């Protein structure tokens, strides 16, 4: 499979209404050449609608979509030349594996020898060499997924769209395929737009993640920025676990329970602020610890839940608000002696102390 140059995608002002419902509400988005971008959101958020608008299956009410410099919003799906993987693969049951993969090439009137060559290459790329004569019904879920991928990339599209392609696979296979898709993307270099509702999948695979809710674009950022600096409470809650503590903005900074928080940055907005506490960022304070750049919380342990690789310590703060802390289950650590009912001190580093704006729903 030859490396193709991805095309940048430029989306501006895309709006789609169904009755009074805004499936897409004035979406602006620049997708870079060769980028792996994930559209993440709960079901009904509009992420699939946006993907379908890119593929040409949904006609937006207004707005513009450009592939490279070319406006494609009025083009029919078959004129757009983008590869697409469907959620249920949509492999044609009346064609075998080779016929499925060669279909886009036959439509493009590629000559027979080249078709055979490229189908073999595609089969090799997805590690299904020798499966060409199989019927679709003879394939396992994982194999179908690979055939669908081969069919989507065999005509070297410069843009690849994927609609939750891994959702039907079991957990182990899904994790394996995530890495494989990622490698394949690096190898082929096409601009890839990936839709999922699985935040871990999004974090694993993407260069950047776009979080969508109620048809609105919430945030577009790298996985790390999204996790560490969510734009609002919705994003913070949707990605990873966290507790939210109400904080007040008072002149020189934000205060929680009368204690001034040490922070690196603060949102511009000064109202409806929440302190986001990720369970794995909390630490138990040990005697003699340097507490410079640390926020300290006095808590009571209410519950300890063992979860294998980690355990969750549920704690209650002085004013009755609860949060949780994730600890390693490794032996020989002082924190292993914590028991239900203990009063302990927890610390949160300045760079992990993120204040977010309530909202985004």
């Amino acid at each position: 499979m030859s490396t193709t140059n991805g095309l940048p995608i430029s989306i501006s002002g895309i709006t789609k209404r169904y009755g009074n419902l805004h499936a897409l509400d004035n979406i602006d988005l620049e997708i870079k050449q060769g980028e792996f971008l994930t559209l993440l959101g709960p079901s009904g958020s509009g992420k699939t609608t946006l993907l379908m608008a890119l593929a040409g299956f949904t006609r937006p009410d207004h707005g513009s979509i450009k592939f490279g410099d070319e406006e494609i919003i009025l083009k029919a799906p078959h004129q757009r030349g983008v590869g697409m993987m469907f959620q249920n693969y949509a492999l044609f049951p009346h064609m075998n594996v080779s016929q499925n993969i060669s279909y886009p090439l036959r439509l493009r009137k590629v000559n027979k020898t080249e078709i055979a060559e490229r189908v073999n290459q595609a089969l090799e790329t997805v590690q299904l060499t020798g499966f060409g004569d199989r019927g679709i019904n003879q394939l396992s879920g994982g194999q179908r997924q690979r055939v669908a991928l081969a069919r989507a990339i065999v005509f070297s599209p410069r843009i690849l769209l994927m609609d939750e392609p891994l959702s039907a696979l079991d957990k182990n296979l899904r994790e394996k395929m995530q890495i494989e898709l990622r490698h394949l993307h690096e190898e082929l270099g096409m601009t890839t737009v990936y839709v999922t509702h699985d935040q871990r999948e999004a974090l694993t695979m993407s260069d950047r993640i776009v979080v969508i809710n109620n048809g609105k674009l919430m945030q577009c950022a790298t996985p790390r920025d999204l996790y560490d600096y969510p734009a609002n409470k919705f994003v913070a809650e949707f990605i990873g676990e966290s507790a939210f503590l109400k904080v007040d903005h008072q002149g020189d900074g934000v205060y929680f329970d009368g204690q001034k928080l040490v922070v690196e940055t603060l949102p511009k907005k000064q109202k409806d602020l929440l302190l986001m506490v990720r369970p794995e960022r909390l630490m138990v304070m040990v005697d003699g610890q340097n507490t410079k750049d640390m926020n300290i919380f006095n808590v009571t342990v209410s519950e300890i839940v063992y979860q294998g690789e980690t355990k969750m310590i549920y704690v209650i703060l002085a004013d009755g608000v609860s949060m949780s802390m994730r600890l390693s289950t490794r032996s020989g650590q002082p924190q292993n002696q914590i028991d239900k009912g203990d009063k302990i001190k927890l610390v949160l580093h300045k760079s992990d102390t993120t204040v977010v704006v309530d909202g985004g729903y």
Partner: protein
Amino acid sequence: MSISTYGHVNEQELKNHATKERRILLGLTYPAVFCVITVMVIPVAWLFYLSFIGSDGNFSLEHYQRMLDSKSYARIFLMTFKVSLLTTVICICIGYPLAYFLSQLPARVANICMLSVLLPFWTSLLVRTYSWLVLLQRKGIINQAGMDMGFWDEPLKLVHNLSGTLIGMVHIMLPFLILPLYASMKSIPQDYMKASSNLGATPTQSFWQVFFPLSLPGLMAGSLIVFILSLGFFVTPAILGGGKVIMVAMQITNNIELFYDWGAASALGVVLLVMTFGILFIASKLVRLDNVLGGGH
């Protein structure tokens, strides 16, 4: 007592339970089996036997011999197949686009439209056929309206001939084609068409290369049902054919009512049955029969 001993103790009992359950399930088929044997198998076997009994009461092939000898029988069979084939072809031409249209509608609208397809089913066959007579005859509504509006000057011969028979039969047979076809079209996921257009197929290419092949089992099922039902049709050709369209079923009636010749009638029935099975057999070589009988994928 250990667990394994428990298992051993219960083994026979569990087996008995399973057998009992199977027997009860099987019992559900008894009434149907009884019906089929008394009203279908026995009479057919009896007629089969009669077809080999000559006028002198002994075994004879005279009824079959007569069919070979007489040109009129060949003509009747030819007419029967011609009418059935034409009915099937016209039903496909009208029914396929309609079924396709219905399958693309949103479910609620499609259900309402489906009702209008099914409506004729709830009216008596005889009533429907006579209504066509009223509509199509020389001074019928269609001829009157056509001449009043100046489309044609002389009354068209729309009935008491082959075209009248076909109009009536297509009307009656159409639902039998549409129902299995619609079911099989409905079972084609929309994503297939999206996938093909995404891969570069124009709507026309998508239709012929993806949708049509996948709707073939339903089309075969519907066509076969229409064709086979048409082979044995009686009422419509009798009323709308005006004596010019004689089909096998009508000849059977003639043999019994005019000549009281059960042997000849039975022989006709047997030949028609054998031919029908022959067609089913050939069709089963072309498509898998369980697809056809199951009416879909």
